[in-house]
């Protein structure tokens, strides 16, 4: 074995230190600038939201915003009960999650545990393409296909309803749940599975008692992300769920999935599409609703972030 000798020939090593120093600085500046643009945009949006929301609450007391049972901002006797919109949003979102979680999770398990590498290589990108279908297409799919289909089973179902909107939103976020959960399940190291098999566990037992618990944090964060996507979903619910704010009352119309409802996003669309003059109360209303929406998704994202940090499994 021969060993390379230490080199003493200085002439061979002449890096251009001066140029590389300027290049380093320039690169740092360029990257910093672009990072700044995205951060500044976010801050700008939040500041606008806050500013207009404060304006809104100078005209409508926060108490009314939280306790009114009707949402009639465009009527002369205006009422601003935000829970009318929140309940509709939660209604469609929970239907969506009820559809998306089992569907997505089972798809993820079958892809990562049972599918051959070949099948996985084809199905997974296909699933991700499903996530790229424009939401307006999902909206018409819900309105013109799913609603008539459901009406054959549920006679009382109206043309616009929370149910089919929720189901279709659920389908549209299934790829998100499936893809992220699959990543989490696939990342569970082989050594854990081997350990389980070596104890005499079957494949099913290994998946249920070892693999899924190990992937839990990833699965939960994918579900939370999907929930916040469902809450913010706009086109599908605007098109398929209708534009009728249902007053909060003992008749429980506000959580009836068979009748038209108005979600927060649908309201924002409705007002934005009309010729609402800037600075009017209706104009400020959409900021207040937008702010509420933002806070909900923010809380969910923070929760998901915390959850992942708290329960993340470090596979060395």
């Amino acid at each position, binding site marked *: 074995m021969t060993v390379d000798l230490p080199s003493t020939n200085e002439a061979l090593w002449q890096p251009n230190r001066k140029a590389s120093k300027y290049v380093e600085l320039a690169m740092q500046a360029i990257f910093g600038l672009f990072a700044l643009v995205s951060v500044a945009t976010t801050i700008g949006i939040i500041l606008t939201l806050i500013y207009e929301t404060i304006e809104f609450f100078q005209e409508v007391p926060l108490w009314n915003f939280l306790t009114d049972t009707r949402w009639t901002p465009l009527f002369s006797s205006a009422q601003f009960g935000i829970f009318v919109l929140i309940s509709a949003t939660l209604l469609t979102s929970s239907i969506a999650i009820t559809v998306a979680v089992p569907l997505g999770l089972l798809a993820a398990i079958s892809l990562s545990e049972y599918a051959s*590498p070949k099948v996985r290589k084809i199905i997974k990108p296909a699933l991700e393409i499903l996530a790229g279908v424009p939401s307006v297409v999902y909206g018409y799919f819900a309105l013109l296909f799913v609603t008539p289909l459901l009406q054959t089973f549920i006679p009382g179902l109206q043309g616009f309803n929370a149910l089919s909107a929720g189901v279709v939103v659920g389908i549209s976020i299934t790829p998100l749940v499936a893809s992220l959960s699959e990543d989490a399940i696939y990342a569970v*190291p082989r*050594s*854990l599975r*081997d*350990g*389980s*098999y*070596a*104890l*005499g*566990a*079957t494949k099913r*037992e290994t998946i249920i*008692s*070892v693999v899924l*618990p*190990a992937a839990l944090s990833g699965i939960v964060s994918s579900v939370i992300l999907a929930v916040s996507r469902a809450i913010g979903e706009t086109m599908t619910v605007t098109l398929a769920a209708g534009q009728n704010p249902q007053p909060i009352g003992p008749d429980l119309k506000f959580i009836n999935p068979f009748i038209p409802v108005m979600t927060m996003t649908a309201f924002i669309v409705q007002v934005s599409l009309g010729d609402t003059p800037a600075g009017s109360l209706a104009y400020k209303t959409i900021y207040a609703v937008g702010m509420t929406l933002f806070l909900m998704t923010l809380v969910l994202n923070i929760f998901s972030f915390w959850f992942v940090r708290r329960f993340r*499994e*470090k596979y060395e």
Partner: protein
Amino acid sequence: MTSTTLIDRDRPASTSPEVIFRAENICVAYEDIPVLENITLDIYKHQITGFIGPSGCGKSTLLRCFNRLNELVRGAKTTGTVSLYDRDINSFHPVEVRRRIGMVFQRPNPFPKSVYDNIAVGLRVNGYRGDIDERVETALRQVGLWNEVKQNLKKNAWDLSGGQQQRLCIARAIALQPEAILMDEPCASLDPISSARIDELLCEMKQHYTIIIVTHNLKQAARITDRIAFFNVEAWESDDRLETLSSLTHKNVPLGYRVGRLIEYAPTVEIFTRPQHQVTLDYLSPGTHQHSSSHSRDRQY
């Protein structure tokens, strides 16, 4: 050198201990690439058998044949038979085999669950009808972990130290009351103190269990094993060996291709004092035979 002569030479004359495993003509290929060729050996009951040899010689692969873990690897193909007390293990349900033959891996791999559940999960999946609490305690006591964790059995196993994790993995295997335990370099990722503890533990366990251990640590092998099998990667020189492999692979395996072989299998004392082969001697005392060409640590294609 045929495998029959190997066994004849090594088999103790009169007081021969009971044979628990008999491996016959084991060949293994991954994705049409052979890694082990024609391994035949007997494993004796209540002994510690060591598998030693350079990396890539197929020791771990052979180990995984004993509990049929290889068949879970995609693209792995095995021929030959392994018998447990004269019964072909392929005739068992694979889950049954793995309950009766425990395994401990190179890196501690406790499940991300509590210490208690790490042991209980194996009992539950095997439908254990007895008192689970009692089995958990017994197993933890046997590996000397009970006093360290009894205060907090709900603690996540991943918060234990590496040595504790590995002892937990051994406890997890012992809890199923297996007849044999396979160990794949159980001390490779541990510090010397944890490693010494495990050696001690293995020597105690020998009274009740049969242990097969793969190790790169020759001192460990010398200290704790009763018998040693030395494996090496060798090129095959003539076409006659291709016969055995043709059943395994579709590819044309070229001459000079390197594959794992059993070189020598004998009581530990004999291996260390009177190895029958030059390669064994080279492996056991590296540095003193620098010009030996057979001393290859990596498998080459």
